[in-house]
């Protein structure tokens, strides 16, 4: 398989790079000075693309690679891949579901606790030496708060299960109600927002869910509402969110994703009710290894003409 060309869209994991290099001819797209001439000269050698949450395979790239057979994403999200184009051309697509569900759910709860209990601020306070002056601030209890989840897929359910252990009543919004689920369903995000204390975005990013958190939803959340985003930056109308937080029309936010990563609105940097993370939802040593193994496993299965491990298309 050493002659099979694999194009890696951006840096994502050195273990994955090593493993890909052992088995395939690996091309690191981000090191190429002129991308279009690279594609023109290598179009017949590249049979696979490895992408992630930041870069995948859009229509333009797919068209430029006539020998492309498979796109393996180092993520569960597929928003950077033109799925319709892949289907049209018979290109297989795989992602990394399940292996990262727990880490992402853990981080969502971690963000809720960090925002409500001001953990990051407390740490900053101690490090600054201000504790000797003894100024405390009362924070907000997490146990018993109403948690509203947008998207009750694997990750949404894992968040619900964890929040329940803190006696949090769970409600959700989904494209369709799930009758077998015991949590309270709301038929719109605005209604869900109005009836919970903490709103979590846990759905896939699609045309329909773009800016699913907009001004109307933020208004419904109110000045005590807390938004947690472990989905995708474009789920949220970011300028609206920033002004709501700066103007204190929203109680707080825990954000792992942004519209234009790695750029984060600087107006958020000074807010003590906001916790900002550099897209680390699945960012653990254990999970990234499992994700990498899944990417390798899918590629090997494809080129050995065996069933794919986690196909999407």
């Amino acid at each position, binding site marked *: 398989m050493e002659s099979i060309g694999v194009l890696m869209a951006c840096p994502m994991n050195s273990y994955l790079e090593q493993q890909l290099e052992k088995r395939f001819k690996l091309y690191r797209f981000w090191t190429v000075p002129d991308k279009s001439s690279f594609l023109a000269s290598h179009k017949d050698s590249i049979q696979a693309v490895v992408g992630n949450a930041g870069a995948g395979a859009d229509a333009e790239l797919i068209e430029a690679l006539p020998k492309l057979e498979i796109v393996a994403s180092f993520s569960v999200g597929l928003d950077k891949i033109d799925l319709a184009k892949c289907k049209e051309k018979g290109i297989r697509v795989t992602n990394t579901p399940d292996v990262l569900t727990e880490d992402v759910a853990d981080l969502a709860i971690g963000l809720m606790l960090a925002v409500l209990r001001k953990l990051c601020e407390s740490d900053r306070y101690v490090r600054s030496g201000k504790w000797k002056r003894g100024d405390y601030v009362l924070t907000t*209890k997490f146990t*018993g708060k109403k948690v509203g989840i947008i998207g009750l897929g694997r990750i949404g359910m894992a968040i619900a299960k964890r929040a329940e252990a803190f006696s949090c009543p769970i409600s959700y919004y989904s494209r369709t109600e799930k009758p077998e689920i015991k949590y309270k369903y709301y038929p719109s995000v605005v209604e869900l927002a109005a009836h919970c204390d903490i709103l979590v975005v846990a759905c896939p990013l699609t045309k329909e869910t773009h800016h699913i958190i907009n001004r109307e939803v933020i208004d419904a959340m109110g000045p005590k509402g807390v938004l947690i985003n472990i989905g995708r930056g474009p789920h949220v109308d970011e300028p609206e969110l920033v002004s709501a937080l700066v103007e204190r029309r929203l109680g707080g936010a825990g954000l792992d994703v942004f519209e234009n990563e*790695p750029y984060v609105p600087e107006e958020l940097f000074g807010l003590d009710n906001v916790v900002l993370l550099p897209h680390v939802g699945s960012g653990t040593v254990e999970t990234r290894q499992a994700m990498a193994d899944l990417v390798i496993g899918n590629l090997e299965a494809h080129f050995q003409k065996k069933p794919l491990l986690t196909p999407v298309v």
Partner: protein
Amino acid sequence: MAAEDQSQTSQSDLPYVLILKPPPSFVLFGDHFFHSPNFQYLKAYESPLPLPHFLHTHAQSVQALLSSGGAPVTADTIRLLPRLGLVVTTSQGLNHIDLSECRRRGIAVAGAGTIFSADCADSAVGLLIDVLRKISAANRYVKQGLWSSQGIYPLGYKLGGKHVGIVGLGSIGTEVAKRLEPFGCSISYNSRSKKPLVPYTFYPNVVELAANCDALIICCALTDETHHLISKEALLALGKDGVIINIARGPIIDEKELVHCLVKGEIRGAGLDVFEHEPDVPVELFALDNVVMSPHNAVFTRESFDDLCKLVVGNLEAFFSNEPLLTPVALDDLPHFSGRKD
């Protein structure tokens, strides 16, 4: 305040509740939250008299005392108050009260009951996730603008599947265990005695517990037995991949050894709400990204504060109307508390 009507007792008839030093909640949020029309506070700290003189002057009027960690209730203090019938504390910990002396004198003690258990457990879990997933450190990184300039943040560690050892499976320890189960953690514990109906693995000593887990969470009381319970041996047994979380009392951990282990990488990280000499914190910790600290505020939520006000007033009112206390502390089967300041 409402105008007095004829049926209300006049101020001078109200029974006294002695306070030696104001509890943190008085200082930080105001003592008017703890007001009751049925008793009045006698504030030793507002008197110019030296304390023993003050106590001698008021000894016959004091039936109840409101305390917190900052003002230990020692045998000496108790002996100066012959009419003392109740000590109420605003804290979860009881290590600042000489409970044996209270038992000997027939003085009732009212604690916090379980009002703080959820918040303490939430702090413990929050700190554990923060340390493993580097939440505070990564938040600092982003807010300093480093994500766009320096790129990808180092990976954290997965919580799921980790073995968590709880030191002290009381009300708080149980709440911690309950919360960590759906995260896929397996729970084990060390306690003064094995608890028969509990589904978690018991280890007879803390070193064995530490050797068999990835994270230790300290939830026990500070007593003579638990002072420096987490010794160098326990920390080394916990090991390079181990994390320690302390939401109980600073002196339960040998802090000098803890700092040494953290600086040398003998353990993976720590989440600490309490320290041996608060508010002093070892400066070596300030340079470490794998340590998350909070200023002994695990119970300072608006909700717990409201609950505390109601509980303190409720216990005092019950005492003065000869009714059962809301949260009496059982004074039989006591571990050794020698009234050490916490």
